[in-house]
Each structure stands twice: as structure tokens, then as C-alpha cells.
């Protein structure tokens, strides 16, 4: 343990997250940061002394929920305290976000959110919280690939072929989304504008419904969550033209990103991440990063009371 001169807070040198390398597992990284969450409280060496509350602003069983639970389960075992997941779905994640924003900034409440986190400030006029001020981004838990799917019956050879067809009949193409203001809506608009074609938005209730629109030939394309589209890609009922993010999907190594397929500035990423509450974390992080008291690589460091053995 080292004592931070600025704050007088005892912290573990093992939380120097700037040292995280690509080889570290997600859970490992998350654990380090949770240690940091606790370290921001007055008695860092005693953290956590009670259950940690994790708010998920989406339904139990959603991708965000299941990813969060997978990481938190392991984290809970490591920390020796329960992490109690509370699902607070509704209003584009803003109900759960508001619940988390009202919680104490004592290191015992975290928020597991999708990247809708960065969308709601743009789509909701009157939020009861300030997304930047009330939450501290802690760490991403995973990238969620989004795939541009079309019906194979259209016979598009590739993404350029699809865009050429869209340009040839301006405004006649339509696209489904999992709802107005959903990330699939943003991904579609970013791509459409970067590629330079017109298309009509037909919002659905959710991702499975939006996928049905393409399967039933009522919509020409949909930027679908990979996990929802994958079974239909495997059995050939849908065709994947591109992945929206800045990296390819591990499950679809042959499908290019929209940028690789020739459309610059068309990427749109979707992810799941962990957030903390703002105030205490901010002072902790800024002081600990400004003054690294001791150089200690994450894994060999045995000084942390929460030393985490990475699982491989």
C-alpha cells in the first residue's frame, strides 16, 4: 500500500490502469478498477466491507445484463463481498441511470451500461442527471459488434454494390432500427451520411422485430447487434455486408468494417462498460495519475489486499 500525498488516502499501487495491456483479461482489468473504486473511499484497505450494488438499466437477460453479471460474478468472488445486480430498465436506460446518479458516491454503487450512455444526452431533452458530471467511466467490458444485414435475395455482391443500388434509387430504400434514438438508428444515420445516400427510417420495437422487417423484405437493411443476427447469418437467411465498428467482429472474421469496405468516417461503435459515481473518484484518479508513487506492474504486484489472479 502507498499513501497518496495529496489526499492522504491509502491506495494500492496495483491500480495503475495505464499499465493494462491487451493480454489482460476483461475481468482482471475490471477488478483493478473496482479496487480503485474502493480505494477512493476513506479506508481503502477495508474496502469492500459490505455488498456492492450494481445497477443495470436494462432487463435481466439482455446482452448488457449478462455481460455485466459475468464480470461481476467473478469480481464478487475475488472481493469476497456480494455484488447485487439491480435491473432498472426503461426510457432508453435513463431510469436506471437516474437511480445510479442518486446513489451515494461512496464506491458501493456502480452502473453497468451500454454505450447508450453516450446517446441519451443527445436524445433526451430533460434528464435528471448530467451524464458527464454524475458518472465516471471506469472501464469498458466489451465491444459489441453491429452488423449491416440485408436479404440475400437482393443479390448484393458487397457493400459498395449495395451503396450503388441505394444511390440509383434515391429515397426508395428503407432501414429498420430497434427504435428511434437507439444505437442502430445512429449507426444507420452515420453510415448513410458517410456513404451519401438517402433512405427512409422505419423504427421497430426492438432488435428482433427490426430483424424480422429485413427477413420479411419490408426493410432493406438493418444495423443489427451481432448476437441477434448471428443465427440468421449462419443459416443463410441474412447476408452480412459490413461491421459498423472500428474493428471486425471475432465471430465474422471475413466481414469487413464499413471503413475497410471503402467508406471513411462511417464507423459507429457499440460497447458495454462500467461506470462509477463522480466526485470521489475524480479526485482519486487525478491525484493517483499525477503522482505515481511506485512503479508496479499489475500482475506481479503483491501489495494489493485485493490482488487478482487473472484467469486464462
Amino acid at each position: 500500500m502507498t499513501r497518496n500525498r495529496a489526499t492522504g488516502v491509502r491506495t494500492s499501487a496495483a491500480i495503475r490502469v495505464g499499465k493494462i495491456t491487451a493480454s489482460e483479461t476483461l475481468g482482471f482489468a475490471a477488478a483493478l478498477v473496482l479496487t480503485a473504486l474502493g480505494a477512493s473511499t476513506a479506508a481503502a484497505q477495508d474496502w469492500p466491507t459490505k455488498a456492492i450494488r450494481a445497477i443495470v438499466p436494462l432487463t435481466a437477460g439482455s446482452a448488457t445484463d449478462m455481460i455485466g453479471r459475468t464480470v461481476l460474478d467473478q469480481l464478487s468472488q475475488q472481493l469476497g463481498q456480494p455484488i447485487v445486480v439491480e435491473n432498472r430498465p426503461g426510457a432508453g436506460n435513463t431510469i436506471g441511470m437516474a437511480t445510479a446518479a442518486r446513489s451515494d458516491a461512496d464506491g458501493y454503487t456502480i452502473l453497468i451500461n451500454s454505450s447508450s450512455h453516450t446517446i441519451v444526452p443527445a436524445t433526451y431533452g430533460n434528464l435528471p442527471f448530467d451524464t458527464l458530471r454524475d458518472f465516471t467511466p471506469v472501464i469498458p467490458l466489451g465491444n459489441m459488434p453491429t452488423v449491416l444485414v440485408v436479404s440475400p435475395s437482393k443479390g448484393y455482391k458487397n457493400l459498395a454494390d449495395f451503396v450503388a443500388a441505394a444511390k440509383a434509387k434515391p429515397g426508395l430504400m428503407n432501414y429498420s432500427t430497434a427504435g428511434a434514438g437507439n444505437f442502430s438508428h445512429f449507426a444507420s444515420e452515420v453510415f448513410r451520411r458517410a456513404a451519401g445516400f438517402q433512405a427512409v427510417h422505419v423504427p421497430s420495437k426492438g432488435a428482433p422485430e427490426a430483424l424480422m422487417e429485413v427477413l420479411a423484405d419490408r426493410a432493406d437493411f438493418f444495423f443489427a447487434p451481432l448476437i441477434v443476427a448471428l443465427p440468421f447469418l449462419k443459416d443463410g437467411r441474412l447476408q452480412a455486408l459490413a461491421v459498423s465498428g472500428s474493428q471486425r467482429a471475432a465471430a465474422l472474421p471475413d466481414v469487413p468494417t464499413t471503413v475497410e469496405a471503402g467508406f471513411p468516417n462511417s464507423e459507429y461503435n457499440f460497447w458495454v462498460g462500467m461506470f462509477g459515481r463522480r466526485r470521489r473518484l475524480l479526485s482519486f484518479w487525478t491525484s493517483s495519475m499525477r503522482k505515481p508513487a511506485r512503479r508496479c506492474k499489475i500482475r506481479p504486484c503483491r501489495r494489493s489486499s485485493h490482488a487478482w489472479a487473472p484467469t486464462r
Partner: protein
Amino acid sequence: MQEKLARLGADPMTLTTSAFEKLVQTEISTNMKIAAAAGVKAN
């Protein structure tokens, strides 16, 4: 852990906390611009 997450559709995303914080800030301002340009509002 990675395998479990992969089954849930998540690919690894390795960012430091400060890089993640920057990403969140950038995305919020980008999404503001997209929403304004495309007239996107929540349901």
C-alpha cells in the same frame, strides 16, 4: 472469462480508464452532432 463474454457477443475492448473517459466524452459530442443533423429524438 473471454470465452463466456464471446458467447454473449462481446469482443475484447482493452482501454485504460483515461482512454475510456476520453471515448465517452468524444462519443457524447459526436452523438449530439449526429442527432442534430439527422433530427434524432428518443421514442
